[in-house]
């Protein structure tokens, strides 16, 4: 049965490969960073299993590894990555291969789509081929493997060229790769430290609770600000609902729960579009597209986010108190 954990092992293998290449090229800091990250990925399942069994030591070691990563990160200067193949060669190859180049690139979304749709029904001799949890992402990992074979066939280049080029892209992204994971961990720590409760305590202390509009605006802005801070609307939602949504809007002002929940979450999504804390949507794409400013993507979507937020709050005010 194919599980998403296999994808983590593939990632670990690729990270270790990148680290070893750097080691051979005597780039110590980069080698240490990718090797350490690779080890964290390879040992992740064991860490979680031991944690579930009540043994905290592996988790503590992983935590130490995370702190070490943070110390190594500033040593990775972003290198403007020089293509080793000149632009002339690339243009000639583009002319020669034509639309065939699109095939492997499109295989990634297409195979993912197929597995997402058909995966749950596939079975061999009564055994399901794909595990249910994170099916789409398992599909994405498999799609990448299929696409790599296809790309190697289409371009008639050996597969290790792919790993070599992939490592160069990885270096171009640099420390931004780990930021989403760290921010997810920060979100957990914030939750455990009661940051959310402190914020909702502060907001509701300031709010004129008699006015339905004021409560609604407080709730909407609270969702946005809290999402901007945590980088994730899912972390903001329960806090703001428990602080303002449920006691004030639903119980006191009789707001419709389905509308409040649905549109309240969307306020948070507007916040996600504005914040560097949502690194996987905002900072990683900027690095991936090699923009000179890490905040380029946020700048491009700020106007949309504010306009959508205004539209959403207005719709909410019109619909929620019917």
């Amino acid at each position, binding site marked *: 049965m194919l599980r998403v954990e296999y994808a983590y092992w593939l990632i670990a293998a690729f990270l270790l490969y990148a680290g070893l290449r750097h080691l051979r090229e005597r780039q110590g800091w980069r080698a240490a960073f990718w090797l350490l990250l690779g080890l964290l990925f390879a040992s992740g399942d064991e*860490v979680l299993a031991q944690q579930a069994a009540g043994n*905290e030591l592996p988790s503590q070691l992983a935590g130490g590894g995370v702190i070490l990563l943070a110390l190594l990160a500033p040593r990775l200067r972003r290198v403007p990555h020089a293509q080793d193949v000149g632009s002339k060669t690339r243009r000639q190859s*583009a002319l020669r291969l034509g639309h065939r180049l*699109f095939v492997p690139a499109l295989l990634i979304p297409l195979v993912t789509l197929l597995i997402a749709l058909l995966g749950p029904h596939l079975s061999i001799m009564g055994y399901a081929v794909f595990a249910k949890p994170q099916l789409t992402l398992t599909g994405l990992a498999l799609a990448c493997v299929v696409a790599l074979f296809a790309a190697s066939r289409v371009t008639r280049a050996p597969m290790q060229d792919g790993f070599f080029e992939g490592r160069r892209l990885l270096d171009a992204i640099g420390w931004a790769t*780990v930021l989403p994971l760290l921010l997810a961990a920060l979100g957990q720590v914030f939750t455990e430290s009661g940051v959310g409760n402190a914020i909702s305590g502060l907001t509701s202390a300031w709010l004129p609770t008699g006015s339905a509009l004021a409560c609604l605006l407080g709730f909407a802005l609270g969702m946005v600000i809290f999402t901007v801070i945590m980088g994730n609307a899912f972390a903001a939602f329960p806090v703001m609902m428990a602080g303002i949504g449920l006691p004030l809007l639903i119980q006191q002002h009789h707001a419709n729960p389905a509308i409040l929940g649905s549109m309240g979450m969307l306020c948070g999504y507007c916040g996600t579009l504005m914040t*560097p*804390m949502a690194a996987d949507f905002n900072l990683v*794409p900027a690095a991936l597209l090699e*923009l000179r400013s890490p905040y380029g993507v946020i700048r491009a979507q700020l106007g949309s986010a504010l306009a959508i937020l205004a539209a959403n709050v207005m719709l909410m005010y019109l619909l929620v108190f019917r």
Partner: protein
Amino acid sequence: MNYWPLLGIAVIVIGFLLRFNPVPVVVCAALTSGLLAGIAPLTLLALLGKSFVSSRLLLLFVLTLPVIGLLERAGLREHAQRWIGQLRGLSLARLLMSYLLVRQVLAMFGLTGVAGAPQTVRPLLAPMSEAAAEKILPALTDADRDEVRAIAAATDNVGRFFGEDVFIALGGVLLIQAFYTQHGIELSPLAIALWALPTAVAAFVIQSVRVWLYQRQLQRRAGDVHAPRKG
């Protein structure tokens, strides 16, 4: 109530304002909040490690890099640009709006992982958008190229976010439903998901209008460039 853990947020804000490397800043913020909340150092360390490895799926995009690297070396971006350059009827705004529509509809069916910055924007949408922008204004500056690519990534994000909450079995809707169930309000996922539709439509219109405005701005600049030559 203990308000001291809020200092973790201050660490983040100061770190970002002073443009320190975000990685150590984020770890410092986590340690600050955790320690001020009175979590024992070893427990905090374990929490950090456990949360880090449980969100490993956020790094799945790394697996696309070898494929994209190989194809880009063989000229994928050059080909995408040339192809878009030849298509007469395909303007920048039309390209991005069609992508936005497809992305939003896919997300509505729960297929958020099918497209994204590494899967579709970097290898396909970004070079195509650049080529479409070049058709309008051949002398694009580096800053313009950055902006076009950023708009492509932004369009992808908007499509994803304002599509996914319409799907009944995805994170957002299930989280809302679970919260209400815990507090004694029973709602079906469909009842929640339907109310994401009006904003989904609004998001599509707003992003399309902004893309169109950007295209008009490029056209104006192109007009300024050409006007003296004609006259």
